């Protein structure tokens, strides 16, 4: 119960901090919107629905690396020490992951809305399934990137390391997500997508479990 209380408090703290400055959310939002707009201006119209799907996921991937990597990289040594004294490492990790998931959900929802608005020629017929894919994507990106950003921030070598370390890990997840999203774009019935959804849930559980096991070691300096 102690853990749940700590997690709740830490999430509250994160949201409050973000609400005061609104730096990350607005920054990443502007990043996504301008990327989509740049893509729109350079492509004008996309050739087929496969490209439509792939482009969306590439934009989301880069936006989420930028958004989630803030979580640990941005904190000062003093802030980390402070939460180290006050809370358990598991609470820190869970709260960061949950907060990042919320952030990514807001971000990807707006991004999807804007993307379908600009590139309206290939809007998937099964928008609900596509949104399920987007939600799964938000969750998986935040679970993986939170842990990787913790590793990168401890290594003390921000941006580039984050990208190098996270790409090979996120590729299997991304492949599953693109497959799931493609099912939605093709308008296949939901039964065809249960495999991918199940796999994604499994990979997420695996990631969270290993993160929870490893984070206490990483946290201690």
């Amino acid at each position, binding site marked *: 119960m102690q853990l749940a209380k700590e997690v709740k408090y830490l999430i509250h703290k994160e949201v409050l901090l973000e609400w005061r400055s609104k730096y990350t959310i607005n920054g990443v939002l502007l990043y996504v919107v301008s990327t989509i707009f740049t893509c729109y201006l350079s492509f004008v119209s996309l050739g087929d629905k496969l490209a439509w799907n792939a482009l969306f996921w590439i934009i989301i991937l880069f936006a989420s690396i930028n958004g989630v990597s803030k979580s640990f990289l941005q904190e000062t040594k003093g802030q980390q020490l402070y939460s180290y004294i006050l809370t358990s490492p598991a609470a820190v990790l869970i709260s960061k992951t949950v907060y990042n998931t919320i952030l990514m959900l807001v971000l990807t929802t707006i991004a999807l809305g804007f993307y379908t608005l600009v590139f309206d020629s290939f809007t998937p017929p099964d928008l609900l399934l596509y949104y399920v894919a987007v939600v799964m994507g938000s969750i998986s990106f935040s679970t993986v990137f939170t*842990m990787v950003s913790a590793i990168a921030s401890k290594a003390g070598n921000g941006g580039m390391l984050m990208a190098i370390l996270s790409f090979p890990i996120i590729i299997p997840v991304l492949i599953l997500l693109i497959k799931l999203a493609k099912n939605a774009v093709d308008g296949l019935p939901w039964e065809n997508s249960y495999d991918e959804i199940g796999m994604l849930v499994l990979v997420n559980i695996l990631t969270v479990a290993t993160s929870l096991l490893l984070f206490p070691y990483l946290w201690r300096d």
Partner: protein
Amino acid sequence: MNKTWWKILGSVLVIYTAIAGLLLGVPRLPILNESIRNLYFHVPMWFAMIVLFSISVFYSIKSLSSKSEIDDMKAVESVNAGIIFGLLGLVTGAIWAKYTWGQFWSFDPKQNFAAISVLLYFAYLILRNAIDEEQKRAKISAIYNIFAFPMMVVLLFVLPRLKDSLHPGNGGNPGFNSYDLDSRMRMVFYPACLGWILIGYWVYTIRFRLRSIENKQQHN
């Protein structure tokens, strides 16, 4: 003799598979033809790689709790040895693909995922280079190694089964075992796997000994 028997066994097995693999009879199959002999050289590379990476994860876990430098060196040297086998596996696979599928790299999921999993370990090595402090490097890279290992398993063993692939054992294609690995091939294939795993382990122990000597010299 107690310490060297497995090295002799490994060498003998690999020499045996090199000779027997090229000379003994193999089933005549369409498309594959004589290139089926590559099975003795391509598949054992992956077995050796998996064994070496598993050793690396084992020592990474150990080094997290023991904090000993030796465990860390064992972890990194088994990755170094494992990457050699991973690259050899990619190359032998690509050559085989050229003669059976028509292209060195035909965007096959199995090839792509294998390449990504090798990238994962290159990222591990780059992470190590990025950190100067030795104990910190040992700890952080061990954590990344353990974190990445389940992903590699997903990449190499789970995902290819979901996608369409020309590779045997994937996308509905039956594995070698089920239809064409007859008893003649088994006679060579199993010793080949064991032999290359032993050779891989030998390479790792030599690399580890070299590394620890270098380390000792630096400290003196």
